[in-house]
Structures are given as structure tokens and as C-alpha cells.
């Protein structure tokens, strides 16, 4: 009788532990339990996900970097110019809802896994959220769209604010995505800001600094800026392909600059990472030589004067132009 009671108590304890543990799959590598998501558990709401990667405490000491980053489209990676938000919805309607095996009949069926085709780059931390966040994001997107149609300015603004709160903030590059080769370099740890220095970091939430082996390397940006189709997904997607172009058309031809060299350092843009919209990037991107002359061309007896225009362009960037 005593034994049965003990077993019952043990079973209850195991069940209790299972219920309170963060709900995500175990990983093979060592140290993943030190990551932000492993420590906090997956986010259940957009607000929780925003809080999990909240970079607002960085502003106190790094206002200049923050202000730069706020000008970059990374700071509104889900919303973009509005076009990105719209593409999320067209990916649901024209993609997921038309794919017979996606499991999505309506936007209400959308889960995190469905959104990762876009979110892998536009919001990589969505992988650290429950499906309830995917649903909240989808309803926010459609609510914003509906508010636009109704010209409800207050609701449009509220939707935009929520969508813009989900972005590639400081901690995405300086923590979550700061290490690519995790079995070699370890998993990014909660409480650590990854950059170019080791040591203490005067922050309650992030008391340590550590060196990211890739923060100055092209692969840091290549995590999102595209090799081609994301074949690791059950339904591959493809957006920009510039990292693939960088590797196979630039580095392979002895190109020496990294993404950061052009988009942050030489352009003096810092964390305001820009591309085709920025005058400094435009100036550096292409050599453009044109000349023109005219003459009396003739076809047998028929004289047909013409101008000849010759254009020479050399792409001085590290990838095909246009790309993204």
C-alpha cells in the first residue's frame, strides 16, 4: 500500500515537472539550456516574445547605435514598408492555403512552423514562441489590413506598432544569432552580449560580454540574406539570395570585403544598415560610364542617321545587383 502511494507521489512529481518545463525539443549539443529561450521557456504572447528579446536597456549606454539601427529596416522587419506585412498574408493565402498538405485551410490554422518560411529571417526569434504567438501575429496582420481598408487610423497605428515591436533588435544579432557553429563555439547564453570584447558588461540583465566569432564575418548576415531555397524547411521558401551570390560570384573571384565592410564601415552607416536606398551605398555600388555619338549610317542607298550609345557598368558590390 505504502509502495503504491509512493509511486503515485513520484508520478505526480514527474507530471508536475513536465508541466512546468519549457516546452521545446531537447537538442543534441551541450549548453543549449543556457540560451535565452531555454531559460525563459517559449513565449506565449507577442508581448512575451518582445520582452524575451527586449533591447530597450541597451539604449542607456548605446544610444548612438540604437538610433542608427532604428533607421534601418531591420528595426521593422515584420512590417517593412508595409509590403512585408502584406507578403506575410499573401504567403498564407496564396501559399499555405493552396498547399494541400500544409494543414492550413484558413488563417486560423497557422502555426509557428508555417510562418518560419518568412520568419526564419524576418523574425528568427519566432522559433522561440508557442503557436499562440503565431495566431496572435496572424490576427494582428489581418486586423491591420482590415483597419487600413476601413481607414481607421487609430487601429492602423495600433496594428503597426505591434508589428514593429517584432524586429531584428540588438539581441538577435548580439545574442541569439551571434553564434552559428554552436557545437564548436557553444550556444549563445542568456545574460551575455556577444560582440568584439570579453568581460563584464554593466547591465543587470546582461552582465557579461563575450566575443562572437562571426560578428564581423559575412556569415553573420548570411544567416538571413540568403543562399537560395531554405531546404531545411518542410516547405522550402526563398527570398533574397545575396549571400549565395557573395560566396559564388564574389568571394570565389577573390573578393575580400565582408557585408559589414561595405554596409556598415566604408559607408559610415554603422548600425543603420542600408542598401539600394542610401546615397553612400548607391555611390559605391556601380561604375557607370556612358558615351554617345552620331553618324550617317546607310543601308545601300538609304541613309538612316543614328546615334550610338555605349554603356559600361561594373558592379563594385560583393553580390549580384539587384538582390536583397
Amino acid at each position, binding site marked *: 500500500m505504502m509502495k503504491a502511494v509512493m509511486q503515485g507521489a513520484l508520478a505526480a512529481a514527474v507530471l508536475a515537472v513536465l508541466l512546468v518545463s519549457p516546452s521545446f525539443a531537447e537538442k543534441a549539443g551541450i549548453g543549449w539550456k543556457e540560451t535565452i529561450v531555454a531559460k525563459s521557456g517559449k513565449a506565449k504572447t507577442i508581448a512575451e516574445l518582445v520582452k524575451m528579446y527586449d533591447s530597450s536597456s541597451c539604449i542607456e549606454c548605446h544610444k548612438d547605435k540604437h538610433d542608427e539601427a532604428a533607421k534601418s529596416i531591420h528595426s521593422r522587419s515584420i512590417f517593412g514598408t508595409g509590403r512585408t506585412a502584406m507578403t506575410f498574408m499573401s504567403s498564407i493565402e496564396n501559399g499555405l492555403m493552396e498547399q494541400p498538405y500544409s494543414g492550413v485551410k484558413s488563417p486560423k490554422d497557422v502555426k509557428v512552423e508555417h510562418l518560419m518560411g518568412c520568419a526564419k529571417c524576418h523574425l528568427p526569434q519566432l522559433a522561440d514562441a508557442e503557436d499562440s504567438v503565431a495566431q496572435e501575429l496572424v490576427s494582428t496582420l489581418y486586423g491591420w489590413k482590415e483597419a487600413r481598408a476601413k481607414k481607421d487610423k487609430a487601429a492602423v497605428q495600433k496594428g503597426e506598432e505591434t508589428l514593429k515591436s517584432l524586429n531584428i533588435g540588438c539581441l538577435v544579432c548580439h545574442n541569439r544569432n551571434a553564434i552559428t557553429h554552436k557545437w564548436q563555439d557553444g550556444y549563445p547564453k542568456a545574460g551575455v552580449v556577444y560582440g568584439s570584447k570579453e568581460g563584464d558588461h554593466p547591465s543587470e540583465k546582461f552582465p557579461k560580454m563575450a566575443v562572437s566569432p562571426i560578428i564581423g564575418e559575412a556569415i553573420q548576415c548570411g544567416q538571413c540574406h540568403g543562399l537560395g531555397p531554405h531546404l531545411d524547411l518542410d*516547405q522550402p521558401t526563398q527570398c533574397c*539570395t545575396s549571400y549565395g551570390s557573395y560566396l559564388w560570384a*564574389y568571394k570565389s573571384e577573390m573578393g575580400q570585403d565582408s557585408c559589414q565592410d561595405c554596409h556598415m564601415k566604408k559607408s559610415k552607416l554603422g548600425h543603420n544598415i542600408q542598401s539600394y536606398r542610401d546615397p553612400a551605398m548607391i555611390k559605391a555600388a556601380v561604375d557607370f560610364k556612358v558615351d554617345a555619338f552620331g553618324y550617317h549610317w546607310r543601308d545601300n542607298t538609304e541613309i538612316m542617321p543614328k*546615334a550610338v550609345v*555605349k554603356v559600361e*557598368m*561594373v*558592379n563594385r558590390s560583393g553580390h549580384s545587383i539587384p538582390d536583397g
Partner: protein
Amino acid sequence: MPVPQQLARGDRMGRGPYEKSGIIEDTGLPPGKPVHERFDIFYPMGDVVEKGKTVSKLLTHELDIEVKLWYLPFGSMNADPFLWREFNKKVSISKGGK
């Protein structure tokens, strides 16, 4: 720009990230390699009657040549185009001779 292949099969171009997989061709400028374009623009001719006969005559001896390099992030002048470079030249041809 990279022309995406629809679902990584066949000869159809894909639309949207949910269809794009692979590349059919890249019409963009490859890094580090000169790309040349040549344009032959004929001076405008018009029919005029001379001595009772209709003949084709040159309407002008000058052309204003304008070359613009546009960056079209979405492949169309209707969607957020950016003017990157511009070239202007008046090109004249001789009025004498036969």
C-alpha cells in the same frame, strides 16, 4: 535580378517567397565583371513632298540622349523605383554632304 524558379521545377517563374525556389537566370549585374550595353537610336525621319515626289527626310540633326540607371527593387517602375545614375548628351550629326 535573380529570376526565381517556381517550386524548383520546370520553366515557370515563381511569385512570392512561398513559390520561389532556385533561379532560372540572373539578369542583374554580376560583381566585379564589366557589363556592356549598346543602343542604336535612329534619328527621326518623316515623309515630305519635294518636286512632286514623296521622299523621306531627316527631321532633326540633334538628339538629346538620356540614359538612366534605375534600381527596381520589385522589378517595375510602378513600385518604389530608385534612380541611381543619369547621363545626358546632345548628339549632333553633320548637315552637309550627300
